[in-house]
């Protein structure tokens, strides 16, 4: 129940969805109150008063071709159409989702058979289906519903199948099976709830279509039988007098639009509200550079004269639904040319945010830089115009990220991705750029550079991908490389190779390196100095060996104690009374 309350709160926070909900609620209220509203008889004909325009006396919305009151017909017609639309959507949802769930979850031949069946259904002429239904069940709106349901089954089946197939191999499904659940239960209790959002969205988008589609069937007798009004038949009647009395079609058309619009807005809102990623933060698309909101720009101090990168009092926050959370709370850093600074910390310590904030790559929204200065040589990056920022990124400041499978573009050949990095900063002909890539690949010791240039990321091993990332970072001879957990996703033997490579490149090219890691061993192997981050602050900084062997801060001590060391790993199993529970 708490979840449901949260859901509605989130839904209403979305202004568009709230507006949709309001419109729909209003329509529903009017429609449900139809019997007690002072409306004219919707079926009373008066051909002498036919096709009166809206705002005529006694007929607010005018009259139709038989002189019936359009307002009354609209209200009663919507009542029927909404009921039919909702019923048809739900029925199609149940049937289509069942097919989709089975096909997606079971896979294999079941999947093939069911989906070929769905193909057949989609390719089937729907009029013929409608005629068959009239033949068996007779005319009427209810029977139109069946035709519309059958036609819409493929939507649900296809959409649900895709999601269900993705869920089939998820670990929680395996876990449920190991917990003793049978396939039927897993489908209903584990898979279905995760497919629900797709079903909800599809329902919300199909209801409007359903109402329009019933209009398309009325010429087969599959529609409400006269004199009963529904939006579909009203549209059909309006069509005949479209040229001389457009309002007869416009009135129901407008209502269909309102219903479709509100349903879609609600559907979008529902999708966002049940998306766990959007639960905490405001939904948003990251901009080009992190927003900077410094209340006071710190007076231009000279900083560390010899430093390449000089960070003072950097503060980064994230906007959430319930306010602004400070993730980095005033960090000071300085990196000299050719120096390697390690930043170590656990998840949530702010180390990656700090790294990304340097070139303003923290996604914004929700990220905001709320204070400090990031000086790269003379320029304050937090005040840099977009053009300068773009030239620096990948030019003098390059990044290497953690997981190269997700950080390389999956659909571009890796050679092209490196070429792009070159051409973003240098005017180079394609041939020259290729030669340069070849050179870079050789420098990062990738075997067969020509073959690898033609490869897609997924065709390479993790180590090869990370070498490509490093080659990309080196493309424009940067002065500073910021490496955010570059070896975390790699096997130890591969990690060793990458670390050796970085160390060597640093020596050769006098590269400054900011190296972020959670692993003391890795930092110890490559860095000159280390900063220990905890809770968004740097708790201790100093030469690596000093910090490692003579940690001053208690957090650093705890951290070092928790790392199992080969040869005396069992020590970590001794309970440390100082430690707080996780």
């Amino acid at each position: 129940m708490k979840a449901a309350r949260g859901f509605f709160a989130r839904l209403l926070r979305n202004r568009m969805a709230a507006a949709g909900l309001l419109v729909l609620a209003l329509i529903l209220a009017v429609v449900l109150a139809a019997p007690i509203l002072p409306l004219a008889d919707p079926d009373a004909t008066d051909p002498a008063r036919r096709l009166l325009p809206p705002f005529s006396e006694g007929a607010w919305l005018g009259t139709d071709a038989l002189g019936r009151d359009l307002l009354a017909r609209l209200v009663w017609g919507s009542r029927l159409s909404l009921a039919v639309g909702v019923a048809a959507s739900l029925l199609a949802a149940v049937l289509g989702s069942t097919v989709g769930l089975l096909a997606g979850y079971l896979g294999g031949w079941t999947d093939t058979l069911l989906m070929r069946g769905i193909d057949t259904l989609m390719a089937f002429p729907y009029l013929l289906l409608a005629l068959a239904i009239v033949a068996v069940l007779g005319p009427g709106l209810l029977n139109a519903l069946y035709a519309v349901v059958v036609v819409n089954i493929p939507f649900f089946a296809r959409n649900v199948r895709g999601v269900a197939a993705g869920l089939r191999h998820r670990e929680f499904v395996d876990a449920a099976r190991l917990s003793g659940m049978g396939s039927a239960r897993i489908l209903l209790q584990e898979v279905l709830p995760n497919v629900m959002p797709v079903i909800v969205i599809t329902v919300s988008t199909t209801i409007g279509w359903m109402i329009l589609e019933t209009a398309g069937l009325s010429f087969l007798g599959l529609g409400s039988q006269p004199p009963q009004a529904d939006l579909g038949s009203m549209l059909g009647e309006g069509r005949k007098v479209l040229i001389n009395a457009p309002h007869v079609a416009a009135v129901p058309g407008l209502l269909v639009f309102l219903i479709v619009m509100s349903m879609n807005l609600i559907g979008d809102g529902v999708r966002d509200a049940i998306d766990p990623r959007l639960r905490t933060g405001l939904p948003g698309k990251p901009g080009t550079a992190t927003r900077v909101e410094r209340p006071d720009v710190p007076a231009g101090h000279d900083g560390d004269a010899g430093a390449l990168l000089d960070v003072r009092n950097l503060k980064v926050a994230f906007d959430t639904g319930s306010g602004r959370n400070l993730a980095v709370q005033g960090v000071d850093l300085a990196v000299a040319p050719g120096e390697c600074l390690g930043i170590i910390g656990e998840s949530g310590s702010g180390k990656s945010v700090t790294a990304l904030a340097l070139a303003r790559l923290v996604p914004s929204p929700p990220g905001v830089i709320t204070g400090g200065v990031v000086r790269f040589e003379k320029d304050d990056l937090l005040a840099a115009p977009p053009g300068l920022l773009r030239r620096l990124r990948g030019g003098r400041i390059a990044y290497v990220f953690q997981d190269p499978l997700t950080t390389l573009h999956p659909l571009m050949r890796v050679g092209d991705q490196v070429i792009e990095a070159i051409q973003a900063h240098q005017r180079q002909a394609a041939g020259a750029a290729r030669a340069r890539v070849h050179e870079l690949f050789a420098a990062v010791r990738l075997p067969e550079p020509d073959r690898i240039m033609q490869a897609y990321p997924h065709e390479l091993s993790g180590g090869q991908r990370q070498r490509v990332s490093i080659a990309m970072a080196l493309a424009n001879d940067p002065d500073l490389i910021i490496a955010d957990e570059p070896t975390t996703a790699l096997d130890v033997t591969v990690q060793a190779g990458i670390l050796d490579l970085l160390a060597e490149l640093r020596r050769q090219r006098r590269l400054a390196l900011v190296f972020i890691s959670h692993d003391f061993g890795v930092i110890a192997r490559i860095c000159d100095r280390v900063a220990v981050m905890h809770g968004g602050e740097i708790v201790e900084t100093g030469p690596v060996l000093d910090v490692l062997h003579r940690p001053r801060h208690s957090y650093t001590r705890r951290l070092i104690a928790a790392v199992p060391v080969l040869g005396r790993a069992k020590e970590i199993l001794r309970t440390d009374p100082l430690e707080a529970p996780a």
Partner: protein
Amino acid sequence: MSGAPAVQVRDLVKTYRPRFALFGRRRKPVTALGGVSLAVAPGETLGIVGESGCGKTTLARCLVGLLRPSSGQVLVAGQPIDRLAAEGPAALGRSVQYVFQDPISSLNPRRTIRQTLAVPLRFLAGLPPGDHPARLRELMEGVGLDPAMLDRYPHEFSGGQAQRIAIARALAAGARVVVLDEPVSALDVSVQAQVLRLLVELKARHDLTYVFISHDLAVVEALADRVVVMSAGAVVEEGRPEELFSAPSHPYTRRLVASVPRL
């Protein structure tokens, strides 16, 4: 180390056949496990180390019946696993359980912890619903979590807490053999140490047998009584961790040990 082994693996082979293709080139089948044999004594912790692609996860999934081996046999408490599996999901689940690497994704994001933990109670332990609340409280306390958290959803937990829940689920039905597939790799070092200590404590309390899989040699050393090193679908070396890691004999093991960054 006496009596029938808790887990016995004989000549296990697993090859992945390429998707059935009516036309075109047939792809060669991929061998993930090339005839692995090993045994785990009751109460023992067997560590399995190796790098990605060495077949350790395939082996783990074969042990709990999530994968069907191409040939060879897996026996749990002397019973062939395919016979257990044939008796329905419950029989297998009562004998052997599994803890996944990523604690968050092994929990259904749309179900509360109470719902998730009730599943093995109902289907494996056959506990009447009336007895669930007491047992759930006991389980939560057993892994060091506040029972008040039972009605939360997985995304409201940290990685360490989620892994504790996953462990509680594995223990709920009283299985004596637990396969742990990289259970602490996704956790921060401080949390990792705590979870490792919890595992040791639980093992002692419930008299468990662990098959502990990790790529981190130090973590394996911390927990395992015995360790096997896997490479390319085969066991290359086996022994007590302290000895094996201090004096590796197989070249692969030597390279592995040499690559570990030291403090």
